[in-house]
């Protein structure tokens, strides 16, 4: 690097920059606390390593033509109440130009409880849609031809059951399972690290993930069986570098688990996908996506010996940062979301969810969701940012930040390795502590006015006008409880017992892929909660030692 004393940059800094005082009060570091120089020049970046879009190591984008070939998929996450309400919201979004579906499940579904379980009380359909059995799944996709849409499902511990329900809906619509497209989140590691919706201990959970990857590679080759997610890690309070590092470490852990099973890396790696946050620190976010692509490609090729170039590609979905939304002056969230979405696009995302402005208060109204979708449409069609690939590539600052985040990620990989890998690090609360530390630091900076949050610690309104929010009718819970009880009453109970017995038996034996017994149980209208209970009996449940 050309950093010798007395470079033009140094002289500029001494003679000109330092001649005027800096503003006091607010920090100049990124929102994650990465220090920023006042200026970046060629002194900060190695020359000649930019590469090209669609070429290894893909820093500038996974596809040669990027958005000139195809825009990103506009995929708004939706789900509330019962399957019928969410089906109506899906149809609404498709009518307004959305190009893919994305399903939010309620807390009981995420935790593997049926709607009539005592622990589900008050939570049914609140934060997502309640799905108890194939019967609900049939309602959820009623009138939506599964051969023509791709569907993303945000489900982790019970991912195998929901994937099976989806496959069964396909079967009933006459769509071959091999033609179904979409993504199942299935990323259990980030649940232990950040989102905390888990059921089983890590080892059997990993087995279930590998079962899904193996089964999809054979039966459902257009499905992404895992979406390795940094989104929730960031929402839990991590820095950008932690989001990057922990997500990729999780990704490598899945790769290693599959290799241990004896799978060929090129048979499954092309279907692994990723999911990142788009936070407010504009350039840091763009650099994060660029670094992520480069690290993934490098490791997949160099460390895991992937030969198929498709195995090197990190394709990812992005969601704007829920945590950046404020309950105060909520319309301002439209602006935050637009800026975050722009970072995701300039960072080369393959699909995008933009949050609705009212989401710090409740689930979004139709009006708010439409504005969120329109935000993406404006970026795609009015701003011109899609016309040139990686337009910020070569920016001294963005290239420097890309290198810096990459460096910090490798540092974390070493620390995780020293702890024995991702699962031992989870058991030692390593990630949880790192995240708690970062979120506490940020909160402190906000409270000290070192970071300004418009409408929260500066530019406040005396009287906030009330806004209309979506209310979930409490009667929906009762309706859903009746639905699941009705299905239990009318199904063939001998078939249910047999399917559950087989599931228990196979779960108790290492080396048996559980997807087939789960498919069989789904066809027999065994509920998701019953399947999870059967596995709880065999595997036990996970408990975290709480730290703060």
């Amino acid at each position, binding site marked *: 690097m050309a950093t010798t004393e007395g470079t033009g940059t140094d002289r500029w800094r001494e003679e000109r920059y330092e001649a005027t005082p800096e503003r006091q009060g607010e920090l100049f570091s990124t929102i994650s606390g990465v220090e920023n120089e006042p200026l970046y020049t060629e002194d900060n970046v190695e020359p000649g390593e930019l590469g090209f879009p669609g070429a290894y190591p893909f820093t500038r984008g996974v596809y040669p033509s990027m958005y000139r070939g195809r825009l990103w998929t506009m995929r708004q996450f939706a789900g509330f109440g019962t399957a019928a309400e969410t089906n109506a919201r899906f149809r609404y979004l498709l009518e307004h130009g959305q190009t893919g579906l994305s399903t939010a499940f309620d807390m009981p579904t995420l935790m593997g409880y049926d709607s009539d379980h005592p*622990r589900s009380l008050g939570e049914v359909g609140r934060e997502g849609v309640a799905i108890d059995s194939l019967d609900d799944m049939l309602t959820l996709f009623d009138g939506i031809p599964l051969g023509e849409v791709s569907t993303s499902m945000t489900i982790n511990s019970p991912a195998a059951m929901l994937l099976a329900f989806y496959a069964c809906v396909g079967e009933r619509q006459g769509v071959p399972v091999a033609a179904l497209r979409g993504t199942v989140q299935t990323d259990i590691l980030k649940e232990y690290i950040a989102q905390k919706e888990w059921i089983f201990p890590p080892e059997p959970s990993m087995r279930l993930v590998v079962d899904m990857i193996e089964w999809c590679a054979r039966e459902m080759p257009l499905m992404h069986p895992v979406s390795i997610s940094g989104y929730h890690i960031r929402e*839990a309070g991590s820095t950008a570098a932690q989001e990057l590092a922990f997500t990729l470490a999780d990704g490598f852990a899945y790769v290693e688990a599959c290799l241990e099973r004896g799978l060929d890396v090129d048979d499954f790696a092309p279907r692994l996908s990723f999911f990142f946050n788009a936070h407010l620190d504009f350039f840091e976010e763009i650099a994060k996506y660029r670094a992520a692509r480069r690290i993934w490609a490098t490791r997949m090729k160099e460390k895991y010996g992937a030969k198929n170039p498709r195995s090197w590609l990190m394709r990812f979905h992005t969601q704007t940062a829920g945590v950046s939304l404020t309950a105060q002056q909520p319309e301002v969230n439209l602006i935050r979301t637009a800026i975050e979405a722009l970072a995701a696009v300039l960072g080369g995302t393959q699909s995008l969810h933009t949050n609705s402005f009212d989401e710090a208060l409740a689930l979004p109204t139709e009006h708010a969701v439409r504005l969120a979708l329109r935000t993406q449409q404006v970026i795609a069609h009015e701003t011109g940012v899609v016309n040139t690939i990686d337009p910020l590539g070569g920016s001294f600052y963005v290239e420097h930040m890309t290198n810096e985040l990459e460096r910090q990620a490798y540092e974390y990989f070493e620390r995780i390795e020293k702890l024995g890998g991702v699962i031992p690090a989870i058991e030692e609360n390593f990630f949880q502590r790192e995240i708690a530390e970062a979120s506490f630091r940020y909160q402190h900076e906000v409270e000290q006015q070192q970071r300004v949050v418009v409408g929260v610690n500066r530019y406040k309104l005396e009287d906030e006008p009330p806004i209309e929010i979506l209310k979930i009718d409490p009667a929906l819970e009762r309706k859903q409880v009746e639905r699941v009880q009705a299905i239990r009453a009318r199904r063939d109970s001998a078939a249910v017992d047999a399917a559950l017995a087989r599931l228990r038996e196979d779960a108790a034996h290492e080396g048996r892929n559980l997807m087939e017994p789960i498919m069989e149980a789904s066809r027999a209208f065994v509920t998701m909660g019953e399947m999870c209970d059967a596995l709880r009996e065999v595997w036990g449940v996970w408990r975290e030692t709480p730290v*703060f």
Partner: protein
Amino acid sequence: MAGKIRVVVAKPGLDGHDRGAKIIARALRDAGMEVIYTGLHQTPEQIVETAIQEDADAVGISILSGAHMTLVPRIVDLLRENEADDVLVLVGGTVPADDADELKSKHGVAAVFGPGATTTDIVDFLKGAVAA
């Protein structure tokens, strides 16, 4: 008021969002209080049991799942049934304004802290309310 203020920070229901709970727990500890964090996925029964066992002055319930109108009144009722209604109940999270009013007026919740509340607000409130 002799001795440290004792606070149970609790996450009821199936909600896994623990960012706020952990920040509050740490801020209360830094402010000199004795803090017991229950961890995630607690039933109202478990929370009340912890509050009684720990002889808590206050229970801070962090909830972002929308189930507050079911779970919070249940915790308040259980405290009363166990003759522990001197324990202050505070709620933090995404609670719409009219729900917050109802929790305070009908269920005896001492305070509801929404998004944007500072840790200092919460510390000051607790110090004032427990001393009183």
